[in-house]
């Protein structure tokens, strides 16, 4: 008997993104399709230059659930390839990071170079046929490109270039990535396993100012300082705006204008931070113009489709590594500007760890929400009830002459979440990147 199709994937998100079937956050079949259609086709964050600065430096990470090795070869070039031996499938490298010229499989000693190609097979001439072609057992390569030192990979040769995929987001990233000296990540990442669907986190970071004053009330009351205005959802953030880009990325920004924008640093580091921002705004203005000087002095929360998120003002950089439809690992780095004094960088790392680390006084609140969002779907009846993201529906798409991409006011808005879900929907229902690109070109601003 043929299996009865349980649903049509295209029906699970309403075309405007405002209503979702809960099965997209729960169902194993949807998840397997996500691994194929979203994770195996998108540009995914792999590393940042300073994390693998020297020749031979490597780290191991995941693209979806595919294990990969990312390494800087002796030629200085960064490459990535599957961390699974082409002989019998074993994991090749079991360290999180290090420095190595070669990667040797523990099973039979096959040696792979920093390009993922065979550099030695023990006893090869004696035990393999003459026709055996080593090229056929090179490790599957990841297509690697980087933007301002941030290294991404995709398995899809037909995907647009990383710069095109970032689209308008690149212009916004430049606000801090193209500051003089650029941005860098401080690692290694902290990692925590949470029983939730990865998309809830990406959506939360892409545009959910709304939850901050409520979910995080305890922490904000304790260390909120300038964030106190948000406490208890008594007000929307002043002057906040939201952006949503063609390929599903987006963020909120609340500018500080005359003041240094709301942040969460404490004591001496808060003063150093404020001095840094004040001294930097004119430099950014000079280099990148008024709009990005405004955004430089703003708190941000954002996500890059599908599973990378960041905060500015807490300066966290996160990847939501899926581990099934109902589980993920949260990997967290700290993002700083390379030219900052070392003491300020350390202070920023400390603030990030204290607030959005594994024992972060805000992070725990989010984990608890996302587990609840996910796990209630174990109920069959509950699972039939749709979820809602209609906040600000119809108010998006403010055309702006100064900012590229769709823009919405006020910042309390779910336009970026809807745009994220529509990108997800497009990828899940498109056969290839030609179709994704064509559809997003017409659908993005609808």
């Amino acid at each position, binding site marked *: 008997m043929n299996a009865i199709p349980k649903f049509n994937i295209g029906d699970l998100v309403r075309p405007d993104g405002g209503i979702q079937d809960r099965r997209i956050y729960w169902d194993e079949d949807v998840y397997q399709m996500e691994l194929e259609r979203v994770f195996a086709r998108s540009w995914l964050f792999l590393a940042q230059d300073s994390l693998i600065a020297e020749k031979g430096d490597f780290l191991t990470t995941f693209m979806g659930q595919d294990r990969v090795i990312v390494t800087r070869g002796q030629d200085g070039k960064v490459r990535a390839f599957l961390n699974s031996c082409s002989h019998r499938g074993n994991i090749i490298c*079991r*360290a*999180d*990071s*290090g*420095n190595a010229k070669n990667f040797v499989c523990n099973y039979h000693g096959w040696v792979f170079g920093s390009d993922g190609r065979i550099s030695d097979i023990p006893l090869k001439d004696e035990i393999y046929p003459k026709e055996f072609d080593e090229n056929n057992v090179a490790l599957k390569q990841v297509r690697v490109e980087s933007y301002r030192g941030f290294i991404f990979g995709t398995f899809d040769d037909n995907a647009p270039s990383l710069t095109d995929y970032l689209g308008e987001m690149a212009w916004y990233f430049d606000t801090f990535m193209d500051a003089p000296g650029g941005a860098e990540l*401080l*690692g*290694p*990442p*902290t*990692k*925590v*396993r*949470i*029983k939730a669907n990865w998309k809830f986190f990406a959506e939360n970071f892409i545009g959910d100012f709304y939850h901050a004053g409520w979910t995080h*009330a*305890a*922490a904000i*009351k*304790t*260390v909120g300082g300038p964030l106190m205005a948000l406490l208890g959802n008594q007000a929307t953030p002043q002057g906040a705006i939201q952006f949503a880009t063609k390929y599903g990325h987006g963020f909120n920004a609340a500018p500080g204008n005359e003041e240094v924008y709301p942040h969460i640093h*404490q*004591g001496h580091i808060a003063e150093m931070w404020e001095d840094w921002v004040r001294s930097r705004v004119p430099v950014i203005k000079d280099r990148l113009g008024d709009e990005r000087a405004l955004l430089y002095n703003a708190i941000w929360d954002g996500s890059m489709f599908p599973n990378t998120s960041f905060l500015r003002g807490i300066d966290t950089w996160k990847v939501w590594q899926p581990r099934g439809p109902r589980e993920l*690992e949260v990997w*967290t*780095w*700290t993002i700083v500007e390379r030219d900052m004094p070392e003491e300020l960088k*350390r202070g920023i*790392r*400390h603030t990030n*760890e*204290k607030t959005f*680390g*594994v*024992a*972060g*006084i805000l*992070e*725990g*609140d989010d*984990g*608890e929400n996302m*587990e609840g969002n996910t796990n209630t779907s174990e109920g069959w009846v509950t699972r039939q009830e749709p979820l809602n993201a209609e906040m600000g529906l119809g108010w998006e798409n403010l055309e702006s002459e100064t900012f590229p991409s769709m823009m919405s006011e006020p910042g309390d808005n779910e336009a970026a979440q809807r745009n994220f879900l529509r990108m997800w929907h497009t990828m899940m229902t498109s056969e290839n990147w030609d179709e994704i690109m064509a559809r997003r070109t017409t659908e993005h601003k609808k």
Partner: protein
Amino acid sequence: MSGGASDIKPGSIVPLDLHYVIQSFLFKEARMLDEEQFRPWQATLTDDIHYWLPIRENRFRKDRRPEPTPENSSSVYNDDYTDIEHRIMRFETGLAWIEDPPARVRRVVSNIEAEYTDDDNELNVFSNIILYRNRRQDEEAWFVAARRDRLRMVDGQWKLARRHIVFDQHVVLDENLSVFL
């Protein structure tokens, strides 16, 4: 402390009576934390407390990079007295809903060793801890760690001046690590 500096060798173990005092300190500390008596617990910390739980990457044994420090690596906790004060204040706001209803938390402390140091007023204390956390209906977590503590005698009381936690998970396998170990 009993005995002058001259007849104490750094690294030598303390006598039984002092060991008993240190063991009682650690047991009481565990009980105070289990019972959420955060302010009395805080009173057992020195003003210059460093409470540190670094993450432990999987590195090859031959890896020659220096051991992680609070300055060059990532931490779960890297707290001073003010940071701990903030964690307690957060708890006391009445708004910390993830702690409400409260979790059931139990600490078991063992393998205690106390050694003299080159400072007459300070001891190095080693112990292991198993922390069981049970929250909501059925959420369970077991955390296992070693603690490398520095205890200091201040005004006739032992206080915790430094705690370096060697935590035995790389990926933290429960939703958060928001418990003092």
